[in-house]
């Protein structure tokens, strides 16, 4: 352990506080309840001090000839105030420092900067995607004026600039804070953005011949304090104030970036990163962020189906479950295989393990999904819950090790029935003709594929945004998914479908709440002892779990 951080005495608006050495003045003020408006400052990036919105009055203790501070009647240092306003975003607190955030000088500064930022701004809020979450709007209310003194022609700049495949720029809205430039340089390590031209004519652009096509490009949209950078995917789709926001996690890789899912009328409009310094800082990759459109797909499976005379026909849940149970009872235990997914939640995997045990088969595994890690956030493991699948016994030390055996078993006819949970079996080397050979193929999934088309019983289930539950990321952090929207049609939660299947086989008693499923897990798995779904919280908890591959810290 390092030595405790030195505490420094700082006077803010007449009140003395203590802050650890190394605290930024702007952060110290925020902690003292004195929010300082700012545009260019971002706690995760370097401070250029260019917007001048965070100007404050600052002073240092008056020093006596013996180099000790002169004390006032209250025993506290007398402060010599610097006559010029100072920025609060680039300096750390110092012993005896004085700060005024509410003086006339500070108010004048904020008022002046707000006016300057707006004179050449198009003020096109009615059609701007940022409206409702725009710092220009917010600070205008608090620090601006209602009228304009600007009588001249505004500066004209490029509009609708496709900076890259996913980001559209309106240079007239840009306040030149350089957050996006710094993010691309300092975090995404792709120094592709910059300013050109000079003075009030300065505008943002990409380097000639290059595009803002980094897999992290959409983070620039998040940190843009105004409507200059917009997501090409999201723009003009929905006013942000209509969006219901649900805290969840991204399930596109093992990192498990924390997210906010923005929905309206049971439709997802966007996913944005949510700060979690133990996982994703304030960022997420574009791939994960945009990997939600399939949830809104018109092709989603909505009703249970069973095979009758080579055709899948719709049926009701009770009938489908009974039929699935009856089919599975026809086989010896090792004539059945269970292919689960490391994209399932812990709760689903727990129910899956129970189903495996009820069947008694030794043929079970998950389908590994790998890519290359990028040293920023993206993990080589493209399954979000491989650790969960291992911990709960659905797969073993090497996920996917059992798959080739299962595939050859299906081909040879030794395996006669397969339960496929969220995975397309063509991914493990089985063709449609192989699947046709199966006497029983029970499939739980959300979208049609070769496996669902070959199913004997098909259950429509829920996508990541439609369910609650937990996952364990690649670093061993237990995190929570939350339900942002309802599944389509009569589709159900996966854990409930698997529970009902298991009931058909084992006659076991039902369990009705996902919280209770987690409780069962916590009682059975030592690593999770003492946890509950609610105790996981919005930031997740780190488990003491072996951790082989960890993504680089951001």
């Amino acid at each position, binding site marked *: 352990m390092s030595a405790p951080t030195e505490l420094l005495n700082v006077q803010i608006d007449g009140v003395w506080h203590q802050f650890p050495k190394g605290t930024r003045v702007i952060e110290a003020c925020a902690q003292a309840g004195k929010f300082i408006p700012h545009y260019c400052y971002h706690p995760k990036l370097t401070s250029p001090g260019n917007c001048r919105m965070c100007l404050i009055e600052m002073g240092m203790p008056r020093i006596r000839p013996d180099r000790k501070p002169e004390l006032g009647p209250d025993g506290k240092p007398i402060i010599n105030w610097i006559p010029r306003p100072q920025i609060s975003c680039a*300096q750390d607190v110092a012993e005896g420092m004085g700060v005024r955030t509410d003086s006339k000088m500070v108010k004048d500064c904020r008022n002046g900067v707000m006016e300057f930022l707006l004179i050449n701004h198009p003020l096109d809020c009615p059609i701007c995607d940022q409206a409702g979450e725009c710092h220009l709007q917010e600070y205008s209310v608090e620090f601006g004026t209602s009228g304009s003194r600007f009588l001249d022609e505004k500066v004209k700049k490029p509009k609708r600039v496709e900076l890259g495949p996913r980001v559209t720029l309106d240079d007239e809205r840009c306040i*030149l804070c350089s957050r996006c430039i710094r993010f691309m340089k300092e975090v995404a390590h792709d120094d592709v953005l910059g300013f050109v031209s000079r003075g009030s004519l300065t505008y943002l652009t990409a380097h000639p011949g290059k595009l803002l096509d980094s897999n992290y490009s959409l983070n620039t949209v998040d940190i843009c304090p105004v409507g200059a950078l917009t997501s090409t995917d999201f723009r003009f789709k929905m006013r942000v104030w209509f969006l219901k926001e649900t805290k969840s996690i991204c399930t596109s890789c093992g990192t498990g970036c924390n997210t906010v899912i923005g929905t309206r009328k049971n439709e997802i409009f966007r996913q944005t990163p949510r700060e979690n310094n133990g996982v994703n800082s304030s960022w997420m990759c574009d791939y994960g962020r945009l990997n939600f459109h399939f949830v809104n797909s018109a092709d989603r499976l909505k009703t249970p189906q069973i095979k009758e005379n080579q055709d899948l026909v719709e049926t009701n849940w009770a009938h489908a479950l009974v039929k699935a149970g009856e089919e599975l009872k026809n086989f010896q235990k090792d004539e059945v295989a269970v292919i689960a997914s490391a994209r399932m939640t812990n709760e689903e995997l727990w129910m899956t393990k129970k189903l495996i045990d009820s069947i008694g088969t030794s043929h079970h595994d998950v389908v590994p999904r790998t890519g290359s890690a990028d040293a920023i956030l993206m993990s080589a493991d493209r399954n979000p819950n491989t650790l969960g699948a291992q911990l709960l016994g659905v797969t073993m030390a090497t996920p996917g090790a059992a798959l080739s055996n299962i595939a050859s078993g299906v081909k040879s006819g030794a395996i006669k029935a397969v339960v496929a949970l969220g995975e397309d079996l063509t991914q493990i080397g089985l063709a449609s003709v192989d699947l046709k050979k199966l006497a029983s193929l029970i499939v739980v999934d959300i979208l049609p594929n070769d496996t669902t088309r070959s199913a004997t019983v098909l259950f429509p289930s829920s996508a990541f945004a439609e369910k609650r539950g937990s996952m364990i990321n690649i670093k061993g952090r237990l995190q929570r998914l939350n339900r942002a929207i309802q599944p389509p049609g009569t589709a159900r939660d996966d854990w409930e479908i698997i529970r009902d299947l298991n009931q058909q086989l084992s006659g076991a008693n039902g369990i009705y709440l996902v919280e209770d499923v987690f409780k069962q897990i916590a009682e059975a798995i030592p690593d999770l002892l003492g946890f509950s779904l609610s105790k996981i919280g919005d930031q997740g908890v780190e488990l003491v779990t072996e951790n082989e591959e960890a993504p680089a810290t951001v």
Partner: protein
Amino acid sequence: MVSPTRTPHPRERRIIFKNIDRPGWTNDIGCYLQDGGYEELKKAFTMKPEQIVNEVKASGLRGRGGAGFPCGMKWGFIKPGGTKPVYLICNADEAEPGTFKDRYIIHQDPHQLLEGMIISCFAVNARLAYIYIRGEFPLGAKILENAIAEAKEHGFVGKNILGSGFDLDIFVFRGAGAYICGEETGLIESIEGKRPYPRIKPPYFPAVLGLYMSPTIVNNVETLCNVKYIVKIGGAEYANIGRTNNTGTRILCVSGDVQKPGYYELEVGGITIGELIYDVCGGCKPGRKLKAVIPGGSSAKVLSATDRYTIKTKQADGATLESEIGLEDVRIDFDSLAAVGSMAGSGGIIVMDDSRDMVWALNNINEFYAHESCGQCTPCREGSLWMKKITERMLHGGATDQDTGTLLSVADNIAGRTICAFGEACSWPTQSFVAKFRDEFVATAGKTGNGQSGLLSPK
């Protein structure tokens, strides 16, 4: 380069400009050596670096670029024994409107500059130095390149200079045509290959975190030439030139409405504005009266010929005497010009007579600063263009009776709130022009207005 004044005026004291327009003088090293060139360098190598720093401190030399910061104190910020290399940069980005002194040194006496630089580098232990020359001086850059090559051939630059064990390389770095590159941290960014956005101070004080985040000294051309002379005559002797706290000579660049504009090297504080205009520069043009003077380059606050200024002078008995003087009696030195609310700045003295329209003059200055604002920080970026738009409208129609007030408050919202001194440079003209000639602004706005009183609707 053809000079407007080939013979120095009798009141001049030519030290730095000793060789400018000198008959038979050329800018090659042979000519310089024949005249005793590089003797001060040899002398400097007999001294310890800290001795030279002390001589410069004793001389009272203040920076000739514009801010007037004491040169020795600036050098003193470089702590000896540091682990990072020290860099010295000669600021030859002479771009302040009304200023044209450094270019003559570069063109006609480049070796004087190099000798001053080499001595200065030895004093602060800089082994690598740059001359940052503005892009608009292509010939100057060539001359300097040539002079450096000559100095290398003679062993004044390079390894083990004159057997002293001191190594130094000097490179010429050409700007690309931006006024902001004269701001020392903008200049440093430019050398680093970036946009010349001035750095925030703190933490980026050049003496601590300068070029490549190493201790860096940035000095003006004229300042570095003075260092050579200080080594020649000693700091104490140098301090006798000029006045207390305003030592040495300054090259004053007089432009505008005088009979004989041009450059004049004079002892600092050795002349008043009136003496300069009437005795040295031949007075106003026929039939014209003095109206205003901008005494330190276009960013200095304008002084009106009809204003009275209260100044304090220390008497022999220590008492302070207050007296009221007119513009013509104001001494041209750092402290006197600061005392009357302006500054000595870069030494560019712009004279305006009664034929000048002050709105036109301010608009001319505003156009320059709107064009040159780097655009990094909000108040300067937006305010400089706004001020220009207002003065332009006042001149060419569409003015309202609110314009004068708005103009002044825009300037007030810039000054003191920006990253670098450009904020002051662009707002001081407006603040002072409106303060001193408000009636003219109101009248001009009334003439060009569309008859409406502030009813022009925002666009």
